[in-house]
């Protein structure tokens, strides 16, 4: 099955054409993250400076332990920086409380994880709907239908995660991440647990979301082939970004 068999192109009315603004939607300035190992501070990030434009798709590559995931968690507001600033759509996360960061995450950021991280007690439908519920606008059946159709999930909605394949679980996770139309989608090795065929499907979906909905996507990956789907690739090593290469 080709990814085009699964992914449906959004109708014109649902597309969000993304005129590129020059103001970054994501920006880090001299970002540090230290972890405590006993009495020793271990730096995961050492002064990362990164800017991502609205509608841009960015792949972050690097070896294990280079700080990719730490960077993703910081720009997603899941963790607090030790030093430096993270600006998300103009909001400085370093000055925000935990509750404020939670609210910002709810409205502006969607996450896709390597291990899918679906709630095992809920069906695929429930996993997507709970994101809508948390967003606070209640269940939107139209939006739900559009997203599930786009991701080819119509026939699998009543199934629990344990009854879905890896590819299907990741598509549910993507649906959950985009159901509230966040401006930014953060993906942490989204193809790490998938075979080649499903990896291609998921990457194509992410790419299409970026093009059709104008969503800014930042993805972490080890895989150069996966990174090649994106507009720009940056490499990290030892907690710093060592380059930034546009792929086009």
């Amino acid at each position: 099955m080709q990814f085009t068999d699964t992914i449906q192109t959004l109708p014109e009315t649902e597309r969000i054409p993304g005129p590129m603004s020059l103001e970054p939607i994501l920006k880090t300035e001299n970002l540090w993250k230290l972890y405590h190992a006993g009495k020793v501070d271990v730096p995961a990030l050492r002064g990362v400076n990164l800017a991502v434009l609205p509608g841009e798709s960015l792949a972050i590559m690097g070896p294990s332990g280079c700080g990719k995931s730490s960077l993703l968690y910081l720009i997603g507001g899941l963790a607090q920086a030790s030093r430096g600033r993270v600006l998300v759509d103009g909001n400085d996360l370093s000055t925000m409380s935990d509750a404020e960061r939670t609210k910002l995450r709810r409205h502006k950021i969607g996450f896709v994880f390597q291990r899918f991280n679906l709630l095992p007690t809920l069906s695929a439908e429930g996993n997507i709907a709970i994101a809508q519920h948390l967003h606070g606008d209640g269940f939107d059946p139209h939006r739900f239908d559009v997203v599930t159709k786009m991701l080819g999930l119509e026939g699998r909605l009543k199934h629990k995660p344990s009854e879905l394949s890896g590819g299907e679980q990741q598509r549910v996770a993507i649906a959950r991440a985009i159901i509230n139309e966040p401006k930014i989608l953060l993906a942490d090795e989204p193809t790490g647990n998938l075979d080649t065929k499903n990896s291609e499907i998921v990457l194509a979906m992410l790419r299409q979301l970026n093009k059709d909905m104008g969503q800014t996507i930042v993805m972490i990956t080890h895989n150069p082939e996966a990174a090649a789907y994106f507009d720009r690739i940056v490499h990290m090593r030892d907690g710093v970004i060592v380059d930034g290469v546009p792929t086009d």
Partner: protein
Amino acid sequence: MMGHLVYRNLLHRPLRTLIGMTAVAVEVALVVLIVGLTSGLLTETAKRIEGIGADIMLQPPAASIFLGFSGSPMPIKIADKLREMKYVQSVSPALLQFSSSGGVDVLYGIDRDSFRAVSSGFVFLEGRDMQGPDDLLVDDWAAKAKHIKLGDKFRILEHEWNVVGIVEHGKGARLFVPLATLQDLVGARDKASIFLVKCTRPEHTGDVTEQIRHILPGYTIRPLKDFLSLMTSTNIPGLEGFINAMIALAVAIGLLVIFLSMYTTVIERTRDIGVLKSLGADKGFIIRALLAESAMLCCAGIVLGVGLSYGLRAAFLAAFPTLSILITAGWLLKAAAIALVGALFGASYPAWMASRKDPVDALLYD
């Protein structure tokens, strides 16, 4: 949506949910049955005393409301003095003897004729009234519980009695023997534990009480129409404390099981909590979800507990027909409220712990 999440979470681990529900059910049943047994026995005893039909009961000074423990320190001649009083229609002395051989019993040693005058007599279901010194009357509940039949020999207080009558319950005791025989048996010749006084009219009870108080100062005089109100746990030394201790024990069982259940739930769902936080769930949502889960589990346990209470009551009454277990709507509601508060309290720490989990640590949890 939260209700759906909570419901699905409960179904996800059915055994754990069942154990939690059972703990709450045991908690509810323990509270309902302990209170029901206590108030049932007290109420039933009080009704039996009231059912004698006398207006006043005279006891020695500082006598217990538990008549079986009163002993027999009063001279029987007091009855003659009482009979001389204005508005007194009849007086019946009774000797009460507690026996614990072959079960807990209180025997009433009664004077047949005076007891009949005070109480309007027994309703005989079988047999006849006492005539001989070794005759024994048994009420229907005791007959059923002890499997006593008319004409049987029944041994109590190291004495063999002839069962000559089965009477309807509700006349003070369950076993009645001749006063003189019981006085001889327990070495209390010419003594009585209580005097039952029947007034010419019920409204003369106050006048007669005043007269008795005048000639027998310090004696315990109980108008029997108030006896039911006196038989409460608060009037029985230590009983209220015992009930409270039992309720506390039941609550502790429920609280600890709910605590353990929710604690393990939080640990098991650490990653799910991280996922919810990544989706933008705030601390309040996490706390509400876990408290709602605990409350839903508790409500199911309460329903089970109410059923268990009635089931156990039926089983107890089948095994021990003389028991009385009073299950009231008021105490069912109180037990439910106690269980619910306990469950919410038990879940509060795990919920608080979950709400404070670091989302990154939670997402990386295996």
